[in-house]
């Protein structure tokens, strides 16, 4: 019974967080449950009833889940800004996240000196970067929710409660925020502009998405194609891409460093890469898993993978309980990983007809189990199913690792000189063109996806 305690703790905690996000029990209720569970545990020790002990552990963590969510949910606009919400104001702060560049506007997160985070919707130019210190003046207001999407709650999960739409912005300095993050984002910017110098669009954006999760610049019709045929996960930097990068990194280090050192640098590398890639919930989940598996030194073994998945999920919800309900990326990536671990052994017999060469069977099995696991959530959120996911994924996934390899090489070498990148960028161009072509081919087949 005692061996089940870690599972019970994680499950109870997640359940607590989840229920609180819907029912708002409040902290007195959480305290009551925690106290009851403590008495129950003591009682179970006297009577030596295993089931009671288990229930008390479950209740205890359930109570803590409620409490954790309650603390997060109580965060709100600071008392300095509270009285001026709804007015035209002048504020100073620094850009605290990578600018999110859309087709015709840019979204910036401004962190004020009082620690409030404000969403700025602004023009594409002039461009700002992470750490820039800005003076903005405009109307400070609460975000509006769309009819079918709770935008306010979506922003609130990252403690953003206010927005300014097209304010006047003046850059008054730079160097705000973390030096490490700023340096990493600068590297990413150089890498992406290197890609843009040697590859045409949309190939440059596609390879940017594949290697460092830079989705911002993909043309919307191409993203739509990817969504339609169910291969969007490869351009938003899923666990799959991170695993490829972590393995390549570990392999390279392991070949010349002693084991302990290479483990240390490997994990450090994964962490730095997660920051560089934008540290979205999906990226962090995949990175924690990759790091744990890497440390365990047994990538691919089911038992370790299970532990890694639940540990990653637990740590992330502990850090930000709101992602459990309001971050679709986290939900999808967690479910897909669950599918890979728990469903794939059962589906193995359905893909026996696929050849083993080039890992075709492995990719087929992974696609099938991940897609089935995310199906309910995808149906609820997009109201559509792609029918050609399996062939599209197979035809694309086999070439993704080598595309990432040549793509990364072209971006890095273009940094030195565009001519140096020529051999790599040509290969990367053909591979990425092939993948884009497969996606658009399948997306344009009638009934490739069904809408409800």
């Amino acid at each position: 019974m005692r061996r089940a305690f870690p599972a019970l703790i994680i499950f109870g905690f997640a359940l607590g967080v989840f229920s609180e996000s819907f029912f708002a029990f409040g902290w007195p209720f959480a305290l009551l449950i925690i106290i009851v569970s403590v008495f129950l545990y003591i009682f179970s020790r006297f009577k030596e009833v295993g089931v009671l002990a288990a229930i008390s552990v479950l209740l205890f963590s359930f109570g803590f889940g409620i409490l954790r969510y309650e603390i997060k949910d109580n965060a709100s606009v600071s008392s300095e800004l509270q009285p001026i919400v709804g007015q035209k104001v002048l504020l100073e702060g620094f850009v605290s996240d990578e600018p999110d560049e859309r087709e015709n506007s840019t979204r910036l997160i401004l962190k004020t000196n009082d620690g409030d985070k404000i969403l700025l919707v602004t023009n594409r130019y002039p461009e700002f970067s992470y750490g820039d210190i800005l003076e903005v003046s405009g109307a400070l207001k609460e975000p509006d929710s769309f009819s079918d999407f709770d935008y306010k709650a979506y922003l609130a999960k990252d403690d953003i409660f206010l927005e300014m739409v097209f304010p006047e912005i003046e850059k008054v300095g730079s160097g705000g925020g973390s030096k490490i993050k700023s340096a990493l984002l600068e590297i990413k910017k150089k890498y992406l502009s290197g890609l843009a110098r040697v590859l045409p669009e949309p190939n440059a954006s596609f390879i940017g998405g594949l290697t460092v999760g830079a989705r911002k610049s993909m043309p919307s019709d191409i993203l739509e194609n990817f969504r339609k045929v169910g291969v969007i996960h490869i351009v938003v930097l899923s666990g799959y891409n991170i695993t490829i990068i972590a393995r390549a990194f570990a392999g390279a280090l392991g070949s010349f460093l002693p084991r302990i050192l290479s483990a240390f640098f490997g994990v450090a590398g994964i962490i730095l890469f997660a920051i560089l890639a934008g540290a979205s919930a999906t990226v962090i989940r995949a990175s924690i898993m990759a790091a744990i598996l890497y440390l365990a030194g047994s990538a691919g073994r089911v038992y370790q993978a299970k532990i890694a998945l639940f540990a990653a999920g637990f740590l992330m919800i502990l850090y930000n309980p709101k992602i459990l309900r309001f971050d679709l990326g986290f939900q999808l990536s967690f479910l897909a990983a669950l599918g890979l671990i728990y469903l794939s052994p059962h589906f193995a017999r359905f893909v026996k007809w696929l050849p083993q060469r080039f890992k075709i069977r492995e990719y087929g099995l992974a696609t099938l189990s991940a897609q089935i696991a995310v199906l309910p959530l995808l149906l609820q959120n997009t109201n559509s199913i792609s029918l050609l996911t399996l062939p599209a994924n197979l035809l694309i996934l086999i070439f993704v690792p080598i595309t990432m390899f040549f793509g990364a090489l072209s971006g890095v070498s273009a940094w030195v000189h565009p001519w140096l990148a020529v051999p790599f960028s040509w290969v990367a161009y053909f591979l990425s063109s092939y993948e884009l072509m497969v996606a658009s081919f399948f997306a344009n087949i009638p009934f490739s996806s069904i809408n409800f």
Partner: protein
Amino acid sequence: MRKFFEKYQPRYIFLGSLFLAAAVVWFAVFHFENDRLVVAFLNVGQGDAILINTSGDQQILIDGGPNKQVLAELSKVMPFYDRSIDAIILTHPHQDHVGGLVEVLKRYDVDFVFDSGDGASLAEFAEFNKLIKEKNMKEVKVRRGMRILLGGGAYFDVLLPDVFLDSENQHQNMVVGRLTYGNTCFLLTGDMEREQEFKILNDDIDCDVLKVGHHGSKTSSSESFLKAVSPEIAVIQVGAKNRYGHPYQAVLERLSASVAQVFRTDVSGAVIMESDGRDIIVK
């Protein structure tokens, strides 16, 4: 067998890539060499962007649409390894003409920039000017009477602006020109309005192709102007469901009454024409 393959895989990938690269070079050599002038009216949504590819293999881009959509459009009409555009002509510094040029300047090697010298407080335009300075491009202010030789026998005659007006309205200093290749001619109008149309009515503007001014707005394409140009083909560069209601119904009627073929980028996507110096074919 499998072991053999695993052992030699990297070598095969490398050799395969080299072979592929060689094949591409030869394909490119045979495919892209021609004696035709290609004019591509790109589909950049609500905005203008026209790529001219001369038989001397020079590329000239007139305007760049509102945003980076122009990049994907350029890739469709340029070979992928060509990372240079020889010259850019900016008709006037409005968002829907200069916006996309910022990314073009960042990604392509550009030698010349031609414009009227009109200023604007637009952030895109400031960024555009900053890049011209940073990258040491040659900037030329164009006036009526200038002829830009585009290579391969094609040239662009500047019809407007004739005098530079100190005006808030950037349409007043619009760069308008006639692209000539052999006996074929394209009239490229930017957002020219009726007032400027009258200024060039007495010029030799009888052309085969007219880029309809200002996305088909009612401020352009007057009856007498259309008569003077008497084009066989008219192209309207316009975005689907744009908020200005372009193109204007009466302009469409006027065009269909006097022009044999009218193309719209919002309906048929990019419109690509080829001229051999005698005839123009729409691809």
